């Protein structure tokens, strides 16, 4: 059996590998989307807000309805409406919480409420404006919570005491396609170098 035969077999295997990877990526792409997944974020400010009072930490619950663990690197709150034109939203100061090391994991089909794992909730505070703020007395503010994604960290527990799920490091369909292309290209380049 000559060298040419080996090369042909090698090329054939490389081609099969590329096709297999492409098919895998196609199947994977059908089951998941690379578009961000929407999760529910709810919060309730405990007690009332008063001019000049210290910032109040807000317990915020992140609910992940998907079948994969999701990571969040930042949770913020802002005041959308005060219910009165005379009650200025500027009188309320909010503080987002930034979560280091890739974000906090919310396991699949479950929720987590901040503060948790040493991570506090976002804060809200009513500033002392130095002016009459009576228009805000007894006002019910509408607040909006936003959770922005994190990248996740290998080794971070998906759930307290639990193992890591498949979604911890989930590849997207695009990623697998690129992997297939890379594998095929490297194989072909290697064979061409040997033949040359």
């Amino acid at each position, binding site marked *: 059996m000559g060298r040419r035969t080996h090369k042909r077999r090698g090329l054939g295997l490389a081609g099969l590998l590329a096709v297999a990877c492409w098919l895998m990526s196609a199947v994977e792409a059908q089951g998941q989307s690379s578009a961000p997944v929407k999760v529910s974020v709810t919060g309730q400010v405990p007690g009332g807000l008063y001019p000049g009072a210290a910032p109040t930490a807000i317990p915020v619950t992140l609910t992940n309805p998907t079948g994969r663990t999701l990571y969040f690197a930042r949770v913020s709150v802002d005041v959308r409406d005060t219910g009165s034109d005379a009650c200025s939203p500027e009188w309320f100061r909010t503080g987002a919480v930034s979560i280091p090391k890739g974000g906090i994991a919310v396991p699949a089909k479950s929720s987590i409420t901040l503060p948790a794992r040493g991570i506090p909730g976002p804060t809200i505070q009513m500033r002392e404006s130095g002016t009459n703020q009576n228009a805000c007395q007894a006002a019910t503010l*509408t*607040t909006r919570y936003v959770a922005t994604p994190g990248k996740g960290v290998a080794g971070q527990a998906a759930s307290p005491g639990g193992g890591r799920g498949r979604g911890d490091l989930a590849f997207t369909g695009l990623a697998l396609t690129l992997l297939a292309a890379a594998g095929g290209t490297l194989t072909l380049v290697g064979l061409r170098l040997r033949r040359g």
Partner: protein
Amino acid sequence: MIRTFTRSKKRAAAFGSLVAMVAVAGAIAYFTGTGSGTGQAQVGTSTPWSVTFGASTGTMYPGSGTSTVNYTVTNNGSGNQHLNTTTASVVADGSGNVKSSGTPVSGCLATWFSVSNSPPAGTTLSPSASTTGSAAVTMAESGTNQDACKTVTPDILISAS
């Protein structure tokens, strides 16, 4: 046979490496999620000022003397509150008699007494903070029998706003 890389082979190898690096970069893709929701927050309301009195000093008589009492205004609320001023007056029942410790003193008329208030300066007080003022009370000579007021300590009302 000794084979060496030609320029075209090196280019091919470099291209292959580039594709591999791009592929690896693309492969490090995590599922991410975005989330949002709305909630509510309640703003509190103001809390009535607390006014407490110190011991009075001095004694008043019909047509002479002054009894002065210091008072303290405290913010018992949970947030800052602005104190504009205070007013002071002698407390009377429906018949015009003064009250002493909440009890009307028959025949001792509130109109015989005057209060000169020295209010604290207008200020914004944080929770539990306080400020002080004083009220000086004098008794007028009515030209009538004022014995009903002997040893009486008329109640003084301080209104803070």
